Every structure is written in structure tokens, then in C-alpha cells.
């Protein structure tokens, strides 16, 4: 598929996801609301990264650089919450 077409399709899907996330917010699902909203955000972000930012074609090193950022963020968040959630 040529890149412009691919981009167009991606935009379309992004819009669907946007509509989905707003729509779901109107349904009360308790704590699942947040989970679903975050899942949709992750999907949107993944599309942007893979298609718009062409991560698929950028080589291992570039992917590694970006995932390092995410991985280190996960360290920050998980160990800190580990403290907050295990206080007696």
C-alpha cells in the first residue's frame, strides 16, 4: 500500500478509536472505564508510532531507544507504586 493511503486508513481508525473512547465513557463500568480508556489510548499511540512515525521500518536500534524510554518509565512507576501500595 502506498504510504499516503496507509496514513489515511490509520487516521480513520484513530477516529473510530476516539469515538469509541468517548462513547465508552458514557457507560458506567466502574474501574473498567479507566482500563478500557487506557487500552484504547495505547492502541492509538501504537498506531501513531508504527505508521505515522514509521517505527516498523526504522531498525532495531531506533526501536530499542524508544522502548528504553518506556521501560525506564515502567521502572519509575512500578517501584514507586510498590512503596505506596504496600504501606501498612
Amino acid at each position, binding site marked *: 500500500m502506498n504510504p499516503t493511503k496507509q496514513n489515511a486508513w490509520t487516521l480513520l481508525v484513530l477516529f473510530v478509536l*476516539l469515538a469509541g473512547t468517548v462513547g465508552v465513557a*458514557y457507560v458506567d463500568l466502574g474501574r473498567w472505564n479507566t482500563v478500557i*480508556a*487506557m487500552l484504547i489510548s495505547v492502541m492509538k499511540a501504537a498506531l*501513531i508510532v508504527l505508521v505515522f512515525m514509521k517505527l516498523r521500518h526504522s531498525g532495531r536500534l531506533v526501536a530499542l*531507544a524508544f522502548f528504553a524510554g518506556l521501560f525506564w518509565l515502567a521502572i*519509575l*512507576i512500578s517501584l514507586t507504586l510498590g512503596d505506596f501500595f504496600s504501606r501498612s
Partner: protein
Amino acid sequence: MSEPTVPLAHQFEEPAQQQEAATLGMWIFLATEVLLFGGLFLAYIVYRDQAPQAFAAASGKTMLVAGTINTAVLLVSSYFVANAVHLTTLGRRKVVVVLLLAAVLLAAVFLVIKGFEYHHKIEEGLFPGMNFHFPGGQARGAQMFFVLYFTMTGLHALHVAVGAAILAVCAGKVLLSPDPARLATMVDVSGLYWHFVDIVWVFLFPLFYLISHRS
């Protein structure tokens, strides 16, 4: 890609090396941005966990319509930029300039809407520290919500402004360049930054606007 006309800086041996260096550099920079915003996301999780109801109540005061429109605006601008990046490699000067300027325009729209929302919040007395008041006894948690709201969206808005400026410069350079294809790396790298700004918003939007809009 392998335009022989790309000017090569003295420290490089070959164009591919130069291009890869620039791309890698930008991605590493984006990783640092992830951690910059990451500290704020951590604060958000901690404080929302301490006052879930106040956060839900406070989220009700955000403008869902404005937020949704802004999300759409950024998504479309990202789409324009993605196309611009591709078309630069083909040397399509006019389309590229139009696409980049359209993205800049959308960035401006985003900032105007954001400014309007801020203005409204301040009018309503929802700006933390400036005689903040929030009905319903959740003022403490709600104030924390708005501290995070203003800090995170503010930092993001700053990035939007910087990104728009970068795109505008790109548009100018493409317009004036005798051979726009030479600028492919520059446009590509600027585009990466712009998409990243978009991604940050994709996460901010549900965290601030969508906690409680249940009918």
C-alpha cells in the same frame, strides 16, 4: 532516499550515516520526553489513587467537547505531517508546504481552544492557589486534580507551540529550497517530534476528560 546532493557535514563519512544519526538522535530525545512527562503521570496515579472520588468529580468540570475536538485536531495534524514527510522524499514542494502549514494552523486551533478552556477554568475559580473553590466538599482532591491538569496540559501546550514553530521553519525551508528532497531528514525528524506531542495528548485526554461523564 539516496540523493547524492544531500550536503554532508564534515564529521560524517556518508549520507546514510548522517541520516541515521539524526533519526536515532531524535528517537533518543523522545525517550527523554517520555520520562519528562512520566514523572507527571506517576504523580497523577498516586494522587488519583488517594482521592478517586474527588478526581471523578473534578473531571466533570472539564469540557468534554473541547477536549474531543482538540484530540481530533491533533490527530488530523499528525496525518498531515505524516504525509508531508513522505512527499518530501518525492520532492513535492507545494503539497508539502501546504500540508505543513495546515498542521501549524491546526496547532494554533488547538492552542486557541486550550486557551479558551483555561480562561473558563480560571473564571470558575478552578485555578489552584488562586482562591480555588470547589463545591461538594472534595476541594482538596479536586485541587490536586487541577494542579495536575494545568501542569500536564500546560507542559503539553508548550510542546505544541514548540512543535508548531519547528514545523513552520520546515515549511519555510522547503519552500525556499531548490531541491526539497534534500530536506527529507529534517522534515522527517521534525515530524517525529510532532507525532510524539500527539501521543502525549492521546493519554492526557482520557485521564482528564473522561473520568466521569456518565449519563
